[in-house]
């Protein structure tokens, strides 16, 4: 049982940032414009970097500062910029994604949060860190990223969902074990960057062949189609 009063101010701030990261995941579920989606994703990156820096401050592991900088550079600036340019280049900045009941999807997201809380409870009991309560939040961010990928049909949205799953995993690593080894972190960061660029190329290919980014249309591809 963590008592909020037993934590000092920077640990309380970490909890607040964790809640805000969770909130950005919900904000992504609520967005219908692709540009806004990319913007919210960038904010999630900023929050992630801030959390990492705070954890570095609390724990005294200085290598976390490097990974905070790396997170900020990649997930808050570079990847959103790449996605932003892609959306502009594909001419989809004004496009509004129309899909089923958005409120229902958000309430589904809320139940995912409850689910991840129950799943994370035994894990939380094992940990001795003060910020261990946030494990459930990071799990929820991962599941919400998956929900975003399932609920939407637009390829760009699915990529953002995928990236936010990665954000959730990174968040889990930072708050539950105070970061992965630097080599692993660097490897993952560049993998994600490469993935973002590859996705860009794939978008252009999909767009060139079926003239839309609606992935449902991929089911209907056949050899005979002109």
């Amino acid at each position, binding site marked *: *049982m963590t008592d*909020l009063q037993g934590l000092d101010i920077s640990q309380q*701030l970490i909890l607040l940032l964790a809640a805000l990261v969770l909130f950005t995941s919900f904000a992504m579920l609520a967005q219908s414009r692709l540009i806004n989606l990319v913007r919210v994703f960038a904010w999630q990156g900023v929050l992630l970097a801030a959390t990492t820096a705070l954890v570095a401050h609390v724990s005294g592991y200085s290598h976390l500062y490097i990974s905070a900088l790396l997170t900020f550079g990649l997930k808050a600036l570079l990847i959103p910029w790449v996605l932003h340019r892609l959306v502009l280049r594909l001419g989809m900045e004004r496009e509004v994604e129309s899909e089923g009941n958005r409120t229902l999807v958000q309430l589904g997201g809320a139940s995912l*949060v409850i689910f991840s*809380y129950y799943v994370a409870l035994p894990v*939380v009991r094992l940990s001795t860190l003060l910020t261990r*309560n946030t494990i459930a939040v990071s799990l929820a961010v991962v599941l919400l990223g998956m929900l975003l990928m399932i609920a939407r049909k637009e390829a760009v949205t699915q990529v953002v969902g995928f990236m936010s799953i990665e954000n959730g995993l990174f968040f889990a690593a930072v708050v539950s074990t105070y970061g992965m080894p630097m080599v692993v972190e660097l490897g993952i960061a560049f993998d994600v960057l490469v993935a973002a660029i590859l996705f860009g190329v794939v978008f252009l290919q999909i767009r060139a062949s079926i003239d839309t980014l609606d992935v449902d249309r991929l089911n209907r591809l056949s050899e005979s189609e002109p």
Partner: protein
Amino acid sequence: MADYLTSWLLALVQTALFVASAPLLAGWIKRVKCRLQNRRSPPVIQPYRDLVRLFRKEMLLAEESSWLFRAAPYVIFGATVLAAAVVPLVAVRLPTSAIADVIVLVGFFALARFFLALAGMDVGTAFGGMGSSREMTIASLAEPALLMAVFTVAMGAHTTDLSVVIERILSHGLMIRPSFVFAALGLMLVAVAETGRIPVDNPATHLELTMIHEATVLEYSGRHLALIDWASQIKLMIYAVLIANIFLPWGVAVQFSAGALLLGAMAVSLKLAVLATVLAVSETLFAKMRLFAVPQFLGFAYLLCLLGMLSHVILEVGG
């Protein structure tokens, strides 16, 4: 015994102060808004003048109206004043807030709204019925969010008594609670919807496509209209005081000494002025949304309050 009497007297004075200063808050919001929009503003006391003018005017009653139409303004005003009595404005530990907790407060609002909707339908004009239906639609979506925000706060302090809640928060000192951040944001959205401010409703216009609150009171005149207007100003003030005193409780008087009470009054007026300025800025920045976008807006408010409660369970007590 003397203490008992003083505290009741203080509670009465506080409620009277609440009711009397509500038009001032409305005037202040209007003034800031006018400044922001480069218009010349009416004096801050204009709402009082309007109320006095309306009280002096003759009342016109529709021929088909029943006793309900005549009783509704008094019920609405009475319920709102009782709700104001529950909310700690300057001091906590007053007997009125011990009698009724925050769920009763929500109940008073519901009672006032119920009679407003009935009165809207009573005369049988098309606008009244339409306004009532819209009012109830919005209320049915806003109330769960409001209750959820209230429960989040209550869970943090283990009580639904508002003045005990404020006292607990004060005694904990400065603490960053994720749940309170969400609950405050959600409560602000609910307040905007419930008091008919700009993104949801605009009582200053008479545009039949969009009016909600205005449509229900269209048939009222004179004293009745004054009571309803006053009640809606008090309601706005109640929401503002709730947000200011629960989430930023500093300055609220814990003892009944003159100095503490004066400090409390000054602190609360400062907080209300800042909050009203924020409201005016947001009303200037945002355009009124379509009626069909309101459920989404309130769904978002509900989600915020739900996240507040979940983050309280997960981050603040969990593990």
